[in-house]
Structures are given as C-alpha cells and as structure tokens.
C-alpha cells in the first residue's frame, strides 16, 4: 500500500507540474490579453511533433532546445497575424478563433504526420530506472521531467520578479494603457508573452511526448484539463493555477492507483443490489474508472461552492 501511494504521489507530481507548465501559459495570456487560449494544448502537441521530427535528424538534445523555440515563434506569429486581427471583433470572436485554431492544428498534424502514434522515445541517456523501491522502477526520465519543470518555474518566477522585462510584463498585465503611455510597445510585449507562453507549452510537449504518447489526440486529451485547472485556480491567478494543477495531478494519480469501488462502499454498508438493476453501472463504478471525471466533478463543485476559484478575485 505504501509503495503504491509513494509511486502514485511521484507520478501525480510529474503530471501536476506538466499541467502547470500549460496552465501557467494560459493564465499569463488570459490575465494580459483577456483571451482564454483554447489552442494552447495544440502548441503542446506541436512541440512534441517538432521534437520528434527534429530528433530524427539532429538527435534528441538539440531538439529539446529547438522544438520549443520553433513553437514559440509560431505562437508569436499566430498572435501577430491572427489574434490581433480578431481582437477588434470582440472577446467571443477571440475565444472562437482559438477554438478554431485548435481544430486546425489537429487537422494539420494529421496531414503531415498521419493519424498513428509516433515512435518518439526517451533518449537512451535517460532510459534507465533511477531507483527501484518495493520491486517497482521509477524511470530516470520522470525525474528529469520533474527537475526540468521545477527549473522552468524557478526561472519563470525569477524572470517575472527580478528582471526589467518581467517588471514591464507584470505592469502590462494590469495596466496596459499606462505601460503604453510610458513608451513601451505593448502589442510587442503581448506578442512576446504569447510566444513565451506557447514555447513553454512546446517544451511541455517535448518532455511529455515520449511518455504520454505523440499522437494527434494528445492536445485534446490535455486541453480541457488545463482549462479546468485555470478555472479551479481562479481565472488569472498563477498561484491558484499551481495549486490546482498539483491537486488534479495528484488526485487523478491516486484515483488510478487505488482499487476502491462503489462495490466496496456498498459492502461496507451492508447493501447489495441485484446485478440487473437499471443503475447497475453506478453501483459497479470503481475509483480508477471515474478518475478522468474527477477534474470536472471538482470544477462543478468549485463553481457551486466558490465561484471565483481557489485564488480568484475576478468577477465578471
């Protein structure tokens, strides 16, 4: 039991941090431009695919660097030539635009790489079990994911709080007009921030691709989860998104590792149902089965109990 819990916790942390890598970009872009970027997970997917293709020619490590850069440049271009154009048509049009973009990227990925899962593998250098506990291996790659994402946050945090650019960026989030009046080019700041956000998503894709699979559905599989996190954390709050991402990562991981089901609960209560009961599916549910549902249940609960989110103070 203890070993399962330990591994579930470690895996949950890895997933949570990965989710936060995406959620941080969404949050950053939302608080700055007021746009929820539906296509954010699509950039995550592009990162994985770019890295896969690049690694076949250049090897994995250059790809780890180049793929996020490429994704970021693409993101910046999307902001410059797409989003900025749509901005004039209002918030709904912006949201719908990013939704359409997500759809389009998925189609393009299928066009260029096909529908099958790509054979994107963990580099040989890190393809070994880091430690073995209670007879279970913990892959070195997961530890690398953990370290890299922690490093990125430290860097992002320091960049936002300590550097001149970070200062301007934070000011532009809350007071874009004032920052513009001070002579800064706010549209360019937005474009850069969009680029950085999508590059982060791309990086998340590169490190997640080998373990979670590089396939055309990978964006959709994470995309709505990222939104759930952003909403649960409170729209626009980085801290909230961090807590929510870890919470959901851990919750799902624990739920999958557990073997508790409704049947156990019912047995504990001494209740039994005939096997052909119309609601039989409900009585047979197990926790691993409902694990994918948990984030959404949490979302609905959150909205009922605390509509502003964990750390949110935004009212609209």
């Amino acid at each position, binding site marked *: 039991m203890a070993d399962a819990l330990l591994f579930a916790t470690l895996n949950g942390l890895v997933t949570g941090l990965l989710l936060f890598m995406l959620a941080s970009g969404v949050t950053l872009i939302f608080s700055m431009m007021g746009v*929820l970027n539906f296509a954010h997970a699509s950039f995550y997917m592009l990162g994985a695919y770019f890295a896969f293709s690049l690694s076949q020619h250049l090897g994995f490590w250059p790809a780890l660097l180049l793929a996020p850069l490429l994704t970021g440049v693409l993101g910046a271009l999307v902001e410059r030539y*797409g989003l900025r*154009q*749509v901005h004039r*048509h*209002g*918030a*709904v*049009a912006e*949201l*719908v*635009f990013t*939704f*359409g*973009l997500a*759809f*389009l990227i998925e*189609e*393009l990925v299928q*066009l*260029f790489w096909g529908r099958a899962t790509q054979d994107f593998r963990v580099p040989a250098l890190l393809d070994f079990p880091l430690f073995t506990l209670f007879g279970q291996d913990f892959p070195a790659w997961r530890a690398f994911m953990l370290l890299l994402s922690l490093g990125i946050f430290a860097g992002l945090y320091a960049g936002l709080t300590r550097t001149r650019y970070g200062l301007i960026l934070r000011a532009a989030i809350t007071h874009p007009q004032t920052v513009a009046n001070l002579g800064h080019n706010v549209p360019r700041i937005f474009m850069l921030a969009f680029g950085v956000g999508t590059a982060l998503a791309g990086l998340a894709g590169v490190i997640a691709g080998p373990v979670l699979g590089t396939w055309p559905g990978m964006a959709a599989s994470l995309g*709505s989860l990222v*939104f*759930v996190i*952003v*909403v649960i954390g409170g*729209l626009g709050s980085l801290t909230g998104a961090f807590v929510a991402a870890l919470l959901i990562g851990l919750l799902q991981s624990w739920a999958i590792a557990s073997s508790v089901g409704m049947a156990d609960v019912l047995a504990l209560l001494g209740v039994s149902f005939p096997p052909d009961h*119309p*609601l*039989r*599916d*409900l009585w047979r*549910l197990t926790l691993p*089965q*409902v694990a*994918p*549902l948990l984030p*959404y*249940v949490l*979302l*609905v609960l959150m*909205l*009922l109990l605390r*509509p502003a989110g964990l750390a949110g103070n935004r009212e*609209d």
Partner: protein
Amino acid sequence: MGSRKAWAAAAALLGALPLLFDSVLSVGILNQMLIAVLFALSYNTLLGQGGLLSFGHAVYFGLGGYVAAHALRLTELGSIGMPLVLLPLAGAAGGLLAALLLGSVSTRRGGTAFTMISLGLGELLAAAALILVAFFGGEAGISGDRTAGPALLGVNFARETQVYYHAAVWVFLGALCLAAFRQTPAGRLAMAVRDNPLRAQCLGYSAARVRLLCFLVAGTFAGLAGALFAIHNEIITSQALGTANAGQVLLMCFLGGTGYFLGPVLGAVLLTLCSALLSDYTTLSTLYLGLLFVGCVMFLPEGLGGLLVQLHARWRHGRLGSLARPLARCALPTAALLLSGVLLLELAAREGEVLHVAGLALQAANVWSWLGLAGFGAVASLLLRRELPALQAAWQQTGAAHISQGRP
C-alpha cells in the same frame, strides 16, 4: 405582414425540396440539413441572442436524442406504444430537463465563466456517457426501429421521404417558436442582458434568471433536434453529445452569422452540403472546414449572412455597380491563390500518388511540383495584395454612402 409571407414561402420550399431532389441519398442529406438547421437555431438562441458562448450545447442535443432512442427501443420491444410523431416531444422534454439541471449551475454568470463551465459540463457528460453503459449504451450506443411504432394514417416511416416530411414539420414549428421567442419580453431581455447585464439589473431584471430562461429555450429545441437525429439514424452514440458536435454547431452559426435569425440556417445548410459533398472528392474535408471557420472568424465576423446583408444594402441604394470593377480584378488572383493552396494541401495528403491538374502531373516526391505550386501561389498573393486596397476602399465608400443616406 411580410414575415408571414416569408414563413409561407419557407413552408412551400420545405414541401417542394424532396420533389426536386428525390433520390434516397439527397433526401437523406436534406434530412441532415433540417436537423442541423434546428440545432443551429437553438444554439444561436444562446450565442447570438443571449451572448452566451457554449461549448457544451451538444449535451442537450445528445440527451434529447437518447431519450428518443430509448423510446424507440422500448416501442420496438413492445414495452410502450409511443407513436413516432410524439417522440420529438419526448426529446424536447429531455433537453429541457437537462438544461434545467445543468443550467441552474452554469448560467449564474455570463461571459468567460459561462463558457468554461459549459466546456467542463460537456466533457463531464461525454466522459460519463462512456462509463454509464446502461443508459448510454457504451460504444454501440442505443438503437431502435422507427417503423415498429403504431402507424398513423398508414404512414410507418419506412421511407426516407416520410421521415423527411415528419422532420420538416417539427423543424418548421421549432423555428417558428424560436423566432417568436425573440419577440417576447423574455427573448428581448436576453438581448438586453447580452449587451449590458449591469444595466438590465438596475432596471429590475435578474440577469441570471434571464440567462437561465434563454438557456432553457435553447436546451429544449436542441433536445428536439436530437430526437429528430435519433429518428433519422435509428441510432445514437455518445459522439452526439461530445465536444466535436458542439464545435460543429458553433461553426455553423459563425459561418452563417450570429447576428441574424437566418444566419444559422444558412450556415447549417452550407456546412451540411459541404461535408456531404466534399468527402467524395478529398480526404481533407475537415481541414478545409477548419480553414473556412478560422478565415470566417478573422475576416467575416458577421458571417456570410452579414456579408449578404451588407451587399443587399448596397444593392438597394444602387451602389453595387461601383464594386463590380475592383471585385472582378480581385477575383482571378483570389481564385488562383485558393487553387494553389488546395493543391499544396492535396499534394501533402497524397504521398506517392500523381495529381493530374490541367495537363500537369503533380507528384509529392517531385520538388518541382512543390516549388511550382508555391511560386504560383506567391504570384497570386502578390497580385491580390496589389488589387485588394482598391476593393477595400470601394467597399468602405459604398458603405459610408449608404449610412449617410439612411440617417438624415
């Protein structure tokens, strides 16, 4: 009254269509079109009228469909004897009930919060549908036989045209109801809340209540459309309530224009036609639809309907003539640009195949095919860039003239 004539004309058109296109295949497409029209109209009640962008509207469509499919199945088994013509009512009730349950949670706030909740609920239901096999039927879905019910006046719905006319009556009634809803105080207040919830509240209206009402109406008619879908296909699976279906209806409304009652109708008809016809010629039909969608959001925020309205206004003031010349000069480069784009994509999609266009044999393996097409597209786009400003100027000019004429 003008609108009465328009409705009569619409009814006549609905009656005549299967006589004009009478093959089984085309009646099937017409049927899909009808269902899409009602679904899109119900969605636009939320989006265009209430200003509520939902990514979970397929839930109500799907649940309405499931209610109808279960009724079909039970009738087939002989447990109940529900005549087919009443099934849409059951579907509508299902949609209403679901909207009542989920809407009371999701319509408390508008704007982005509403959108996010609609997405969350949509995903939740879609995921739950795969787990709760007893109601949703798992991967296989729920199917039934529409001819099993008691026949009415000798009509047993074995033929596609009978299904069509049945759907046409319901869609016509549904559209009539949704049009009437726009004229009721509640429907008009939905527009007011869309424009300014704060002001609506200070006038004594609860924005949340108005939103909920709008949501209930939209959910009911989505359920009705879902029931028609289940009757037409005699099966419904969890795909019907997934986000892909929700995205599809969003696309229809944006394509046609959310600001007009007829916009979604136009969008639904076009999109159904496109998906039905395009898939015969290309494997990339969804990609083209995606491109169309993004292009529409970027360049035609009012949709095709908005474009038509603008053109009509210019025509009424006799100003269409001055647009003809710049339009004609743009037409050729635009067509060339589109052609090169389509050929590039098709080339990418067909590895190893040879694409024969106008006596040229294009091949994915041949670099010159790529370069030639790219060059062709580049020249076309350069030409278009040169001609486009004249068209834009003429468009602005004719538009301004129409505005100043309309407002003394």
